[in-house]
């Protein structure tokens, strides 16, 4: 009993995994048939495709719009070997282990998968990636902008009426309104853009302008300027999935328009609702910790956090004791 063979451990683990999968499948099918009353109407009262509901992208675009292989961390450093492909996570994410890694992706950029930066902009993108922790506005809990808010790993809710469509985002409780009716231009440039929509058949087409140029597209340093102009297209492909595509134009940063596309999925949990992610509070130490009277972070160099990662396995940790025998 005390000395299980590795083989039997694996067998037990596999059996447990299989059972868990089975249970998940069963509960999902119960949910679908019994938990949900009627499926959502695919048309609104005025005959338009109905996008109302809670949605979420289910991809890796929030890490990097472009195709990429998995990497050990959003920031890395050379390991034992000085090869670019043999990096280890850099200190700020090292302590997170496998949860700090970046999953691989086929990318969401259409065509050749390239983002057509001007040479100067390409250099800025590269620097952005190297200084991700210092520069990415998401880490500071800033308003995420469009299109980034559409594929961040948080749900959002579309509230659709005839003249206005409101989109509420869980991330920092922000929102945008898509105006289908007449509206004056906004009084100032914005983080979330000025969205004016129209119907082309069953596709909702949204023109987004008036950006302030402070947002990024992802955690890989892809960025734009205040000249950004988006044309979004929302098309219902099933009652529970939207085909979402965006044409991106920004003559200050890109040499030609380019396009991303992805499905957005309905959150089918029967009791699904939007919960708060009020991250301003979460980032105060990140933003202002160097100005505390009693420092929580052990070492600051100017306003840069120097993280000394020490990982101490607590005495009596059962897994480690088993592992060490």
């Amino acid at each position, binding site marked *: 009993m005390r000395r299980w063979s590795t083989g039997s451990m694996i067998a037990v683990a596999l059996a447990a995994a299989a059972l868990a999968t089975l249970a998940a499948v069963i509960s999902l099918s119960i949910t679908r048939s019994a938990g949900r009353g009627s499926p959502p109407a695919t048309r609104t*009262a005025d005959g338009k495709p109905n996008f109302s509901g809670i949605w979420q992208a289910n991809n890796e675009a929030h890490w990097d719009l472009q195709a990429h292989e998995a990497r050990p961390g959003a920031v890395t450093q050379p390991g034992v070997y000085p090869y670019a492909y043999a990096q280890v996570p850099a200190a700020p994410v090292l302590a997170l282990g496998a949860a700090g890694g970046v999953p691989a992706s086929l990318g969401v950029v259409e065509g050749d998968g390239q983002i057509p930066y001007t040479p100067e902009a390409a250099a800025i993108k590269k620097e952005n990636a190297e200084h991700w922790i210092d520069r990415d506005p998401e880490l500071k809990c800033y308003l995420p902008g469009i299109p980034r808010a559409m594929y961040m790993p948080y749900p959002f809710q579309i*509230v659709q009426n005839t*003249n206005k469509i409101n989109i509420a985002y869980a991330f920092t409780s922000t929102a945008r309104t898509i105006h289908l009716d007449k509206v004056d231009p906004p009084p100032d440039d914005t983080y979330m853009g000025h969205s004016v929509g129209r119907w082309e058949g069953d596709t909702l087409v949204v023109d987004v302008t008036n950006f302030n140029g402070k947002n990024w597209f992802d955690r890989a340093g892809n960025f734009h300027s205040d000249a950004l102009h988006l044309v979004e297209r929302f098309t219902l492909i099933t009652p529970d999935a939207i085909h979402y595509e965006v044409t991106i134009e920004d003559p200050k940063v890109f040499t030609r328009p380019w396009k991303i596309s992805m499905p957005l999925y309905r959150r089918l949990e029967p009791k699904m609702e939007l919960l708060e992610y*009020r991250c301003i509070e979460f980032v105060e130490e990140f*933003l*202002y910790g160097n*100005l505390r009277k009693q420092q929580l972070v052990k070492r600051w160099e100017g306003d840069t956090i120097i993280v000394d990662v020490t990982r101490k396995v607590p005495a009596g940790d059962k897994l480690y004791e088993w592992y060490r025998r």
Partner: protein
Amino acid sequence: MKRRFLEVLGVAAVIVALVVLLKLRQSPVTGQTPAAATPARAELTAGPALRTPWNEPDLQGLWTYDVEVPLQRPSRFGNREFFTPEEQAQLDQERTRILGQSDRRYSSGSEQDVGGAYNQAIYTTHKPTGRRTSLIVDPPDGRIPPLTPEAQKKRAEIRAFQLALLQATDVCKQKLEGCSGGTYGPPSPRRSEIPPHYLTVGAAGGPTGGGGVINRSDNPEDRNLGERCMAAVLPDFGGNTGFMLQIVQSPGTVSIFYDTGQGQGWQRIIPMTTNPHLPSHVRQWWGNSRGHWEGNTLVVDVTNFSAKTYFQGSQENLHLIERWTRLDANTIEYAVTIEDPTTWTRPWTVKQEYKKQNDSANRIYKEPRCHEGNFGMTALLAGARAQERAFAQGRGPDPATICTAGCGGFALGFADTGEDSNPLTR
């Protein structure tokens, strides 16, 4: 060097002023004209129904309030619900006179004047006084009900801590309103203590505010929610800086964007559902809303507030029952019953009327970007550290003797007391 220090202090001062302003938001507010409301209600049953294409009551549009009514009735009006037209005119006249004065400040260059320039420059006009003598319609005296003994104790503990941190400053030396209840003395050892309660008030404390503005900037948590860009609370009555609500509906959902607190806005979603509230250990800053229709009225039950929320002293036990009714094409009546048996000895009810705004005007900024531009927090903390360094090097006064917050004085353009104070809150 000295100049940079002063600049930092100046920025901090503006922040303090903003904070004071945000905290006071909860007192004077909007108004309603009940005389107009009664015929409007009749019109609703008689006239064309204001309903959505799927036949629910239609609350959509941009809304705000256009008259000012204090949250609590000034006690000199007793149980009287409405001002006479003469009283309204006289109150407007008095407020115009006070806000038109050019000397609504403590002496220039004094610590007490940190917010003076800001307040004097910003608060030069006011909304017309409404007919109602208070937003509170129940209890009949228009006042927030008495606090429970436990809430009084908590408030007293916070006030004692505020006073300890003020006691070595000129505010106490000169016996100014900010030091009310305290005395002048040497720097208190409590300056290095953790506050007796987590301080999440959105606005100034003061002798009766019960809030958490303390004269210290050791860390972001010492500052109030306004300075931390998280002052938006439920219920929200707008306050002196006003608000704009955008309501959009779909079947099963009412969404409300609160453009409030000068860039501290937020998006609210009210699911129309019979589902029970969230599990009791899941708490949110703005609670958990559950809506249903009762005739033409949207009724919303809000619970599951976080211990970090702060509404007039109520935190995790706050319970709201809101009633939103479209009285006519241009009017929504908002009524909210507020209860928390751990804070007040009885529930109380507030009513406010919202007027429809031009939908195409794009008056709503939808951009709660206070946080994105919060250089004030950096300035407050950096200023405090600079003061400490200067003192340690013998170049400046003991920081314990300097008042940077909770000092009192001319918030929103009015004096704390006397004939230049706000006649609607006096």
